[in-house]
């Protein structure tokens, strides 16, 4: 069934199709629509279990941890300041290997106050151990929520789905809503830890769980902590394969899929643009246009940011002449975050490569990454020598008259 719905509605519908038993979320712009829809679903009896009203995101993640530990399917959604407020709980969930699914509507953190979009809120939770997916369209948001449960429960890791605030959350689009039966077929009810196929998972030494009496362990020894992190790293490095497999299964059932990285017209491309989020869609149009004009350009969409799909990226990007990265985020004092990761992936491998990477920063705080800007970024990459600066500013910046910054590269 095709319906025109917003990204928020798509996220809520995706969750609804996966039948979570405990949903606990605190409203925050631009995410509020998601808990609204789900609390409605519980009150109408569409979902079995409980929607829990809480007073903050800190409590929301607390409930999620408890419910996931108890063995039920859980869902929460938040944004920006809310995600930051959950920070401590995020570590807790990943270390505890709890398959929580969280939808984060990307919005920057204050100050200055901003209610629209950039990726700095979720990217600053990079090191918590959560799987992170970034979505391009409302359809992808819905489908990714379903896939996320599959992946999360297969490898016992919490999963964060990021959609762009306003640019996806408040944009209505034609979305094909899958049938419940098919989703049930794809996603059977959650197995408890003891039913897991992997023997390591069954070994409760690496779980923060004591059987008798049941509860969260507090007497972990130091060696056990190291072992826990060793397991975490091991499972994360295998994560990409799990995602690819889960996606393959999804594709055969629903006829559409989203690999961890997607190569678009990259076959003979000399210059490749790489980015994530809603601006990928706009970039597709630009690449299409530039190809028509005779430029050999391609696009790589980075869907999975954590665990970082380094091998897939190396396969896609090594051998290209130049790589342009558009970051919708900034690590102040360093550069865009995707830029750092991609540059690292391409240059610290045993096969040292000298692919120049151009780091553009654009669309912060909801500024529009328009087709015109993307086009200018790609043309800059094609025409110009690699700059010394780590950051090339893409978009309007008002710094008339500051002389000390005359070396900054600004494109608008």
């Amino acid at each position, binding site marked *: 069934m*095709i*319906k*025109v719905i917003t990204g928020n509605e798509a996220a809520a519908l995706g969750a609804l199709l996966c039948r979570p038993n405990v949903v606990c979320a605190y409203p925050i712009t631009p995410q509020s629509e998601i808990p609204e829809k789900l609390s409605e679903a519980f009150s109408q009896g569409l979902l079995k279990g409980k929607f829990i009203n809480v007073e903050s995101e800190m409590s929301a993640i607390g409930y999620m941890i408890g419910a996931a530990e108890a063995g039920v399917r859980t869902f929460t959604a938040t944004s920006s300041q809310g995600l930051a407020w959950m920070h401590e709980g995020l570590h807790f969930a990943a270390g505890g290997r709890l398959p929580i699914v969280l939808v984060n509507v990307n919005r920057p953190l204050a100050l200055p106050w901003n209610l629209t979009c950039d990726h700095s809120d979720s990217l600053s939770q990079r090191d918590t151990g959560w799987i992170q997916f970034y979505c*391009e*369209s409302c359809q992808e948001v819905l489908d990714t929520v379903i896939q996320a449960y599959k992946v999360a429960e297969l490898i016992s890791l919490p999963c964060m789905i990021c959609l*762009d605030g*306003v*640019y*996806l959350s*408040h*944009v*209505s*689009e*034609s979305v094909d809503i899958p049938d419940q039966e098919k989703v049930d077929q794809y996603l059977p009810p959650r197995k408890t830890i003891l039913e897991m196929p992997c023997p390591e998972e069954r070994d409760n030494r690496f779980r923060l769980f004591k059987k008798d009496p049941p509860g969260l362990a507090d007497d972990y020894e130091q060696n056990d902590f190291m072992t826990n992190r060793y397991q975490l790293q091991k499972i994360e490095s295998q994560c990409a394969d799990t995602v690819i497999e889960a996606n393959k299964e999804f594709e055969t059932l629903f006829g559409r899929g989203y690999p961890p990285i997607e190569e678009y017209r990259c076959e003979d491309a000399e210059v490749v643009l790489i980015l994530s989020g*809603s*601006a990928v*869609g*706009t970039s*597709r*149009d630009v690449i299409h246009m530039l190809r028509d004009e005779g430029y050999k350009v391609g696009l790589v969409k980075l869907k999975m940011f954590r665990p970082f799909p380094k091998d897939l990226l190396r396969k896609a990007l090594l051998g290209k002449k130049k790589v342009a990265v558009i970051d919708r985020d900034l690590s102040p004092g360093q550069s865009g975050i995707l830029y750092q990761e991609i540059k690292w992936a391409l240059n610290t491998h045993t096969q040292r490569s000298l692919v120049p990477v151009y780091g553009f920063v654009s669309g912060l705080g909801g500024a*529009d*990454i*328009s*087709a015109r800007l993307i086009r200018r970024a790609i043309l800059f990459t094609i025409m110009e020598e690699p700059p010394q600066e780590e950051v090339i500013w893409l978009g309007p910046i008002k710094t008339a008259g500051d002389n000390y910054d005359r070396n900054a590269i600004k494109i608008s």
Partner: protein
Amino acid sequence: MIEIRIHGTGGQGVVVAAKLLADAASKSGYKSQCFSAYGVERRGGSVESYVRISDKNIAIHSKLYEPDYIVLMEEDLTKNPQVISGLKEKGGLLINSSKQPEYFSSLGDYRIVTIDANAIAREQGLTLATGIPVINTVMLGSTVAMISMVELDSLSEAIREGKIPSAEKNVEAAQEAYQKTKTQRTDTVISEVKEPPGISVNPFPVFKTKMPPCEMGTTHCLAGEDIRTILSLVQRNQFEEAFENIKLENPFPGVCGRVCSHPCETHCNRNEYDQRIAIRALERAVFDHADRGAVKKPIKKKRTGKKVAIIGSGPAGMTCAYFLTILGHDVAVFEAAPVLGGMLRTGIPAYYLPMEVVDQEIKEIIDLGVKVKSNTEVGKDVPFDNIINEYDAWFLGVGGDVTKISFLPPTVERIGSLIKMDFLGRTSMPGLYVGGDAASLSRTVVEAIGSGKRAAVGIDIWLTGADENIFSYLRKGGRGAIGFAKYLNKNYVAQDSALASFEDLNTAYFRKGPRAQMAELPVEARSSNFNDVTSGLARNKAIEEAQRCFQCGQCTLCENCYIFCPAAAIRFDRKGSSFVIAHKFCKKCGICIEECPRGAISWEVRPR
């Protein structure tokens, strides 16, 4: 892919409209996308929503810059040039208006379609409790007809499924609008204008004082009084200041407060709201209640030593004498009759204009230092040649009786029974000026006062050898009134040309109320005497009446814009005496313009 932008105000269902259109497109088998942008989510704020419709997958997720179609939910939006910015050449422009598309052809080379959505909505009973028509589905019916892509049935289906109240009525309204639009030519560009106004510009709101109709419109105060300022003083119970202000432009507030033909009231904006302001009665109230002890006398300029003869002591002559005296000249008034006042005394019955009022006002003029020669008829008691020899300039205020000007040399040109004069009151004889009924057929006191003042300024310019071009800066309104205060203070700035019309005001902020009425004598009490028929407004009643004044076009620091601005861009200026708009923060949403009760903020259009 086609892109559509819908403009409207909060409460009109602009966001819902975009959603329904996207739904309908989806039902017709297209891919669609819609989103909205608004400054503040409330009734009255400006809202835009956007729709993309394509037969392929829509990948783009950036804002919409160059739409193929623009839909305007109300006609007034065309006043803001920003609404059609970015519209592609020969793009479609749908306007909710009862007017023909040709009316909007100056907007540019677009395929303009109009639909009277308000009428259709009212017909279908689609109105809010307040009577405001709900037009979003009507406009959608018309939009679907214009873009010829989405099917009408899909739209009807989308409306039915859209969980909106009285869906069937909406469906019918949309279908009617669809049929009506289909009969219009939606494929041709109507205008041939090569340079569309407002397309290459970037409008922003600014505080701009506009002129009220009482001082500027098709009829306005011919004596050039600052009526808006005077009324604002009365509002604050400052009768003395109001009196001084009138006296700067008109020496006869008592007379005008009773017998003026009050052109100022004719086009008062309040007339379109309830009843016009009783400006004349307020002038009389100022005369009645101003404490003369506290009123400052006009300050005379230094004596120039020039001598001016005024022939005739009617309102024109006495006004001319008054202003020339203030300007420092030695003035002598020649009057054939034993008493001064001309037609004020002999032409107007006392039950309209009691003689005491005329006496008092003429006494105030004489007290300034005007010499009076009554019982002295020029040409009989004193030869005109003597006057010519003795004085440096001469003013004729002899009234409409042609027999009285037989003493004039035949070289002075005439038109019929009138003496010919130019805009400064000059006759064909150098130094001889004329005013009042002798040069005009209007026969009103206020016209005579205006002409006397004009001649006084003209004489002063002639005697002091000043540049007569400054005269154009003194004009008030388009009908010959001038500002004496401007001349006295050498404030040579042309008057603001914009008029604050009723449409510029936001009358939601004003309470309706009746015009103040003066008490009148019962008929029995009038029949045997010449007593004043009316009694004037009491002090508190006058204040109440002045408070009905809209203060059209003038910022009164009501702070409405300050409260409503969603970007907090309205600030006090450095002196703290007026508001300014910080354009760095302004979102150009136009809420301040909409919410200003007095029309004191307007779009400023400046090329990019």
